[in-house]
């Protein structure tokens, strides 16, 4: 009889709900534990996910961009002679692919940078002044002067300028090894100084117009890298696939995680170590749930004995206990989620700035490519993990503790004291 079956199911739910509130203190304490763990894990993992996107974005925008096309040997062994031959034409072609926000060629050479007084070693990047801003933020980090106004102007890092003790309009001599092993030389004027906040970059880089470097270092019209920026980080894999197809033999396309494996590994280390902590927290709360359910079942031995005596089947009682446990979990998990999500929603408007948490943190975080202001990310998987694990633990605990019902003999149970 379907009608009575659904009626009895409704009755079950009502009875289970009432049972839950026979001891409100206990229900709240257990649900509180579930809420505590859920809120913390959801909040922290959302921030982790958010910070990873920020890190990838910061790191790729700094110098190396999302994808690079190089000579097959260049990445493992960056030598002058491993060039991409028809760089300019290829750049045009790559820039036209769907999903590509911009592409720019680059040639590079390690060289001795000298002024009259001092000299330092540095990496000279020959860039296309018009295209470069599409793939990196170096041009936007302008601190003084202008960004590459003329063919003999250099754009240099602020720490390098300090080490060389030079200012705008000063002369700088670049000496290195040209493509065929002869001496490569450039005489430049400091046109602009950039400050990215990333120490290594500010201390070692000098940008010059691509043609200037190619002429001074016998490169002809060859380049070392073609940088490609995708429309968004999530498009990188698709775009890289399209680039692979567009390229023939003799090229290699590398994605950001191959160019900067330290970033991806740093993310993996952070994620794995945080998961360890989250699981510990969830296990502890699961123990608390088991204990609560056990107390609930033991206290009601007499009641269960009575129910069995008047003909209720053990399976029905077990079902009722499951409903009670799940209701308790639902209360805790939704409170926890509500707290976490409202904090996340609030912070996704304002963000958290490291500099506000601790003095000096912003400078440090720049070295690890952490953005100045961090925003939480929405990762459904990470957010669902903690409620799901606790839900399964609750079901398992309810099932395990209710197995005791099979051992209750109505006559004995009715004799026990409450």
């Amino acid at each position, binding site marked *: 009889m379907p009608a009575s079956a659904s009626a009895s199911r409704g009755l079950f739910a009502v009875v289970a709900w009432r049972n839950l509130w026979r001891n409100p203190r*206990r229900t709240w304490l*257990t649900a509180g534990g579930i809420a*505590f763990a859920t809120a913390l894990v959801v909040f922290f993992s959302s921030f982790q996910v958010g910070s990873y996107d920020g890190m990838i974005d910061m790191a790729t925008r700094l110098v190396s961009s999302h994808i690079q096309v190089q000579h097959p040997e260049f990445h493992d062994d960056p030598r002058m002679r491993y060039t991409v031959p028809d760089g300019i034409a290829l750049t045009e072609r790559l820039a036209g692919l769907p999903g590509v926000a911009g592409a720019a060629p680059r040639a590079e050479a390690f060289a*001795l940078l000298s002024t009259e007084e001092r000299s330092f070693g540095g990496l000279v990047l020959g860039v296309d002044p018009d295209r470069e801003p599409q793939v990196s933020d170096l041009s936007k980090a302008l601190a003084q002067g202008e960004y590459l106004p003329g063919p003999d102007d250099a754009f240099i890092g602020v720490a390098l300028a300090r080490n060389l003790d030079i200012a705008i309009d000063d002369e700088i001599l670049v000496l290195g*090894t040209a493509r065929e092993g002869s001496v490569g030389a450039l005489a430049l004027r400091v046109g602009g100084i950039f400050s990215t906040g990333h120490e290594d970059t500010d201390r070692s880089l000098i940008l010059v117009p691509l043609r200037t470097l190619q002429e001074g270092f016998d490169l002809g019209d060859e380049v070392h890298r073609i940088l490609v920026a995708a429309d968004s980080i999530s498009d990188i894999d698709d775009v890289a696939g399209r680039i692979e197809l567009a390229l023939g033999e003799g090229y290699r396309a590398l994605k950001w995680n191959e160019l900067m494996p330290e970033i991806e590994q740093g993310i993996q280390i952070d994620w794995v170590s945080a998961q360890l902590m989250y699981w510990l927290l969830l296990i*502890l709360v699961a123990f608390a749930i088991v*204990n609560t359910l056990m107390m609930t079942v*033991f206290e009601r031995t007499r009641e269960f004995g009575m129910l069995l005596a008047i003909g209720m089947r053990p399976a029905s009682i077990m079902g009722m206990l499951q409903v009670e446990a799940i209701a308790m979990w639902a209360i805790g998990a939704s409170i926890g989620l509500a707290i976490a999500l409202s904090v996340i929603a609030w912070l996704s408007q304002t963000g958290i700035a490291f500099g506000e948490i601790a003095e000096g943190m912003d400078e440090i975080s720049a070295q690890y490519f952490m953005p100045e202001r961090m925003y939480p990310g929405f990762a459904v998987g990470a957010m669902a993990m903690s409620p799901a694990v606790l839900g399964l633990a609750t079901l398992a605990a309810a099932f395990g503790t209710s197995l005791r019902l099979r051992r209750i003999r109505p006559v004995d149970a009715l004799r026990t004291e409450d």
Partner: protein
Amino acid sequence: MKFTLLVQLSWRNLWRHRRRTLILITTICVAVGSVLVLNALLRGMQMSMVETAIDNLNGHFKVVAPGYLDDPGIKKSFSFEPSGHPELASYGIRGWTSRVRVPAVIRSERETRGVQFVGVVPGSEDISFLGDVEIDGEYLSGSDDRRILVGHALAQQLETGVGRRVVLITQGVDGGNRESGYRIAGVYDAVGTGIEKAFVFTGITSLQELLAIDAVTEVSVRLTEGVQGPPVLHRLTRTFTDLDVRTWQDLEPQAAMMHEMADATVSIWFLIVMGALIFGLVNTLVTAVMERIRELGMLRAIGMRRGAVIAQVVIESMITMAIGISVGVVLGLLGYFWLADGIDLSAFSEGLELTGMRPELVPRLWAQDVVLVVGLSLALGFLASIYPAQRAVRIQPLDAMRR
């Protein structure tokens, strides 16, 4: 009422619900044990970062000329006579060494790179990473060795190797370029390619000759293990009055910041884990009180003092905690010894290099951390018993017995 009797009562009460108490104790064990293991892993990371920072030619302290850090160069050098400071030996110092460090450009037939050219006293570099790197070829024979050591990664980039010649270009005090050819004595393998690409070593007197100076640019000091830094810093500052004495924290602010953050992380995680524990603890204790309302009422009626009722609940909580903590500490120690040989993280070596960590994580368990965890857990056990104890004294004997 006598304390021993109370303890006995509490003890028996605990075992009236064996399974419940055991589950609670297991939870405490898991919490304490894993907090200790996590703590040891975190301390391991922290120490790994600190040691890398110290090994990386810094030492615990470095003596430099005033202004050297802002503008490192040969102009900021000073004369230092190692034999002129015999008192250093009594400071709790494991060793010290002087160096000349200048920025330079290294050129092979094929390639050019920028490096730090460092003149060292080979015999006393056991205080830095140079003391125990693997070297293909030979180590420098002495301060006047005119050959050089280059890193493995740099040698690859330069397409050169042991026995070959390279040119180093740097600047003298007068600002003019000094250029000289050097034969490669050995190629060293450091932890992390960053170091291998950054440093080229030669004998200190041979570099001084090239630069035509008789001075050094830095003196690194390494403390004996376990010696406290600040008093030594104080004595060094008084010894070298006209020079700057800098700590490794000044020299490597990133590592110092990470070091402080690790301290904060340890305490935050302890609080979170214990926070999760307190829900279960309070829950069980309150239940234990509520199911004994009748009994507690009776005890009060026959003259048990309020204080004794409170004491009983508190003692029950503390006994549970004490057992859980003891077993937890043993579990934590077992976990620590199981991992003591180190965890191989070389799959993440580049990521670790970014944070200045070594690819092998060796956990460190400090006695002071164990004491702290034990002490705070006991305090937590006390805190958790306050509400249930309050609940217990509120029981009115008459009401309770009527139930």
